[in-house]
């Protein structure tokens, strides 16, 4: 699936919920189900700075030129947000990730709710995913 198709899917899922309590229940559920990041990837290097909770992000480029993400946090809501981002961006081509317009954040109403504080780490995670993808693009010899 393409990035925007997955985003639209998520926007539709969130549209089913009336209030933020329910939306958070959903995010928490995703957070609980996100597989934990193997300890070897929970390094200082993979840690995302500027978050109130500890957030780790690990990425790798596969032979067929796709970037895969794994993430973790000691806070469940941030894990849930990481889960959403991974669902959208993991397995895509680096150039698609780098130029992705993540409109789902606005559309599900998250921008007004929690994305404005850097403490939740959402913006930091997006930035890191894009930076990693840019690095992979360079590695693949693609024009950035």
């Amino acid at each position, binding site marked *: 699936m393409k990035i925007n198709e997955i985003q639209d899917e998520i926007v539709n899922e969130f549209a089913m919920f009336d209030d933020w309590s329910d939306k958070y229940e959903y995010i928490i559920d995703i957070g609980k189900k996100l597989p934990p990041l193997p300890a070897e990837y929970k390094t200082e290097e993979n840690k995302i700075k500027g978050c109130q909770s500890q957030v780790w992000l690990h990425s790798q480029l596969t032979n067929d030129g796709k970037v895969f993400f794994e993430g973790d946090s000691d806070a*469940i809501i941030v894990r849930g947000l990481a889960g959403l981002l991974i669902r959208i961006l993991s397995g895509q081509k680096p150039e698609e990730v780098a130029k992705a317009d993540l409109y789902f954040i606005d559309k599900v109403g998250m921008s007004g709710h929690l994305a404005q504080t850097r403490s939740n780490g959402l913006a930091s995670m997006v930035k890191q995913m894009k930076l990693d993808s840019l690095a992979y693009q360079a590695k693949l010899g693609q024009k950035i």
Partner: protein
Amino acid sequence: MELVTAYNVTDIRKDFPILNQTVHGKPLVYFDNAATTQKPLPVIQALTEYYQGYNANIHRGIHTLAEKATAEYEGTREAARQFINAAQREEIIFTRGTTEGINLVAASFGRAFIKAGDEIIISTMEHHSNIVPWQMLCEETGAKLSVIPITDEGDIILEEYEKLLSEKTKMVALVYVSNSLGTINPVKQVIDLAHGYGARVLVDGAQATAHLDIDVQALDCDFYVFSSHKMYGPTGVGVLYGKKALLEAMPPYQGGGEMIKDVSFERTTYNELPYKFEAGTPNIADTVAFKAALQYVNNIGKAAIGEYEQELLAYGTEALSGIPGLRIIGQAREKISVISFRVEGIHHQDIGIILDTQGIAVRTGHHCTQPLMQRFGIPGTSRASFAMYNTKEEIDRLVQGLHKVRKMFA
């Protein structure tokens, strides 16, 4: 017999228009008062009146608006002097806030009186703003920083403090009330002990001044710093109190207008106190409005406020203790109305986000006291801090909110 009390929280709340709103569809419960308090109408009105009626630069103007602005600005200095019972108005220096006050002392007093081999003592529960300026001074001068340990309950250990004191001690910088734990420190004892060794004492009064009766002469502290915005006044204004003889002996902190007497390219002479330490055009509007905050607190009365907040603290402590898995961090002998807590298995950030959906504002994180968090072996806490306008019903809302949090993360 029913006690008749003059303290009417319903009336007080009417003076704080910001409280009357809903957040995510729920009535706002504002429990982040240790970060900043809300402002009563007289403060908001004083700001508006200043800009609508007499905005002018102060001290050198000879026109009517400048004189009025100067009189009001200096009126706040007098009100602040009375509020902490300083002996003279020259001892009241306006700053941007507590942080700037500490930096001013560390830089100016430090430059004049601290040298290699000297020692500076702070405590484990200091805010970063009462750690970093002293570390910077130590790096510059080669002085040594020592730290008073605390108990598991969150009290400083006086015997350990006494062991740290020596003839080498030049400065003791201590927080009066801990922003993370609520602990009220025995500052008078700390000051007397320090003076026995000829050391000076700076008291960080950021969290104390809105809650406790402050008398800098009775405390006999050498410096006392606090912020307007944590005691119902505007942001961007603070006070540094210093004993006059000390302030006189200290070099200026920043150079510029206002702080000079005469300037030539060969030589500049400095203005007298307090202006020597007030370089540049100050924050006139907020300083003027700060007086309204001081008067507001005086009108209700520190004693009445203190008594009411203790009632909230006792009620809140008992109510929160009943929540399974909740552990209160900071159970000192004497506390102000701050409750820091952790809930087993739930990250403080998750707690804060879900409470916010209930319209409840608490602070989560390390509260700018990372060494203190390390002392307790925790990354952070959730903190509810109560002010004069909070109610027991609001604490009930917090309890309900936390039950919901527990359910969601179970």
